[in-house]
């Protein structure tokens, strides 16, 4: 599946390969070292002799990480031969693009705080609504300031949730739900102020409310599956009224 690459793109790729190969070598060396923790030559566990070397749990991982190390060296040699090492220390050499870096970093921050900070602790409808609003507003037109603002708002909600309720025992608290809802509302107002005739931005609030609401209800009541943070401020109300108010209507 070869595709055409320009000589400049290829040179950038080889400089990146140089770093990639070094990372791969370090990772494979680390895991090779860890593999030696697994008994290879017939260990003895609680007085019982374990398997021979050819049946050891270490034999396949050992081969995999050795091959990975060898192939990383091959990649490194290819990269060096193609001039990747020479270019690898300069920003231009590795094809550094600050706009692209900002785009990736802000998306990375948003996704990290959404998954690691908000989803476990905050109501799913609220945090997903905030995510949808932030991502569409931040990246729709490619403005750097909007990207930064979107990342800042999600990070703020995520950091608050993580700092206030880091241990799992505290994930049921509702103050972080409130903070997320307020931030979502403020961001939505800001989006609407900036929408001025832009059809895409004007439908953001509708999408941000409807999509997570439909998905979470379909998953919880349609497929009867577990959903994140069942005790969240919005979902707990939906669940209560589903079982107490709505369901008796057709059950009776």
């Amino acid at each position, binding site marked *: 599946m070869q595709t055409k690459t320009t000589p400049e793109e290829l040179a950038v790729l080889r400089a990146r390969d140089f770093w990639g190969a070094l990372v791969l070598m370090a990772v494979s060396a680390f895991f090779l070292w860890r593999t030696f923790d697994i008994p290879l030559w017939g260990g003895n566990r609680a007085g019982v002799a374990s398997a021979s070397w050819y049946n050891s*749990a270490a034999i396949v991982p050992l081969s995999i990480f050795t091959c990975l190390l060898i192939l990383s060296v091959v990649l490194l040699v290819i990269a060096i031969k193609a001039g990747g090492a020479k270019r690898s220390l300069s920003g231009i050499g590795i094809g550094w693009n600050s706009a692209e870096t900002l785009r990736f970093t802000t998306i990375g921050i948003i*996704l990290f705080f959404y998954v690691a900070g908000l*989803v476990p602790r905050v109501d799913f409808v609220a945090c997903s609504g905030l995510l949808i609003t932030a991502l*569409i507003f931040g990246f*729709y037109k490619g403005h750097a300031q909007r990207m930064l603002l979107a990342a800042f708002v999600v990070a703020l909600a995520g950091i608050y949730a993580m700092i206030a309720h880091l241990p799992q025992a505290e994930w049921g608290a509702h103050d972080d739900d409130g903070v997320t809802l307020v931030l979502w509302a403020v961001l939505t107002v800001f989006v609407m102020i900036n929408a001025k005739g832009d059809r895409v931005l004007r439908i953001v609030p509708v999408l941000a409310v409807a999509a997570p609401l439909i998905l979470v209800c379909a998953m919880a009541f349609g497929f009867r599956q577990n959903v*994140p943070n069942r005790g969240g401020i919005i979902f707990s109300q939906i669940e209560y009224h589903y079982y107490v108010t709505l369901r008796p209507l057709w059950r009776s």
Partner: protein
Amino acid sequence: MDFVLTQLSGFGGAFYALVADPLTYAYLITSVFLGITFGALPGLTATLAVTILTGFFGNKIPLDYSLIALLGAYVGAIYGGSYPSILLNIPGTAASAATAMDGYPLAKEGRGGEALGLTTTASFIGTLIGTIALLVFVWVLLLLSKNIASPEKALLALFGILLSGTLMSEDLVVKGWIAGLIGLAMAMVGLDPLLSEPRYTFGWSYMLSGFQVVPVLMGAFAVPQIIEGMRHMEIGKMAQVKGRILPNFKSVKRYLPTITRSGVIGTGVGALPGVGEDVAGWVSYGVGKTVSKEGDQFGKGSLEGLLSSETANNACIGGALIPLLVLGIPGSPPAAALMGAFKINNIIPGPTIDPEIILRVVAIMLLASFTMFIMGLFTARVFMKILRIPQVVFLPIVMVLTTIGSFSVGGGINDLYLMLGVGFVAYFMNLLKFPIAPLVIGVILGGLFDETFRRSMLISGGDIFVFASRPVASVLLLLNIALIMSQIPFIKRAFGRLRGKAI
């Protein structure tokens, strides 16, 4: 003869059961529609469609319905990729990249309706060819596969990973192999399958059960696409389509040899482990250009060129299901997602699969291709409107879908951490032009490889020659060695010199 009749009656029974169930239509129409939508939106792929639906439907509804949903989306998405290829010159999926070569020039000439009508017909016929091949070859291979034991299984798994790494690499083959090895390494995490020895768990109890397939699939296929797609893109001017979109049976009859050839090529490429619809489309396009009388017109609006790629990429679906169902080795990246759905339903594709499941898959494929054909002809204008939706609007919703789908499969929040971690790694791998399909295939086949390799060694008392002790194993061993050797530079050069002398 009795065997054939039994199979045909079994297929008839499975087909009737599906047709008679009203819920079949609900799942089929929804999934094919969703599939075409995913395919039509540039940036969303068939693999993503099947992966997301695996998380959403995989283990939440009866297996029959989840297979309808996943196969319907698969068939629909591969076909749907042709819309932006023809109307915008942007391939909706990698599978329809070759379609843009002739589809867009045709649309610019004002023949967009004709191109879409022909594409719909060709995709339908292609899917049927692949499905028929699936029905025929799966039984032949299933009979042969009864003789496959641990050494053959280990070598087959290795061959699948190596071949996928070799053929799916955009840059260096070594990168494909590294991706496959990373996938294999990921499969080593958790309790080992024979001795229950913990490996690389770092004291975290979640890791004892190893990496779950669905979060890895979501991370590898969905997260990088979301990161990559969240950028401002001006949608180009869409070519105007006048009149109704109808199949041109005169052209179909004229190009029937091309359609048949492309269908066979697509099925064959699909049957290769880990090689997807994009390769099928390009190979068929390349062959078409070489053998066709109007080969010089390819790339300038040739109907034959359009049919070559579109028939092949849909025929590839049936082909990709052959190794999946018979050997448990996915034939393409979306088939890897399907394998994930089988796994979470506790069904192990391979020689021991329940034959009724195969018959149901064939029946579903047949129904899905009909649904796709009808939807393609009557609702094409809806999909043209969908093309206008910027992906920046669609992808955040995909992220929410991915999150809730991954969470609900079973592992909870830890699965989400895994998904995000794999997603960031896969994004950087994409950036360095490492293919992702071999990684996923490595994760899926890693457990099988580990178990069968060590079992072979155990049976033989540590004799490595067990891998050459049986005819099929010897052939597979030779194939593996040949595949590796063919990529070593000095051997490549030597073969090049030999070829030069021969000419």
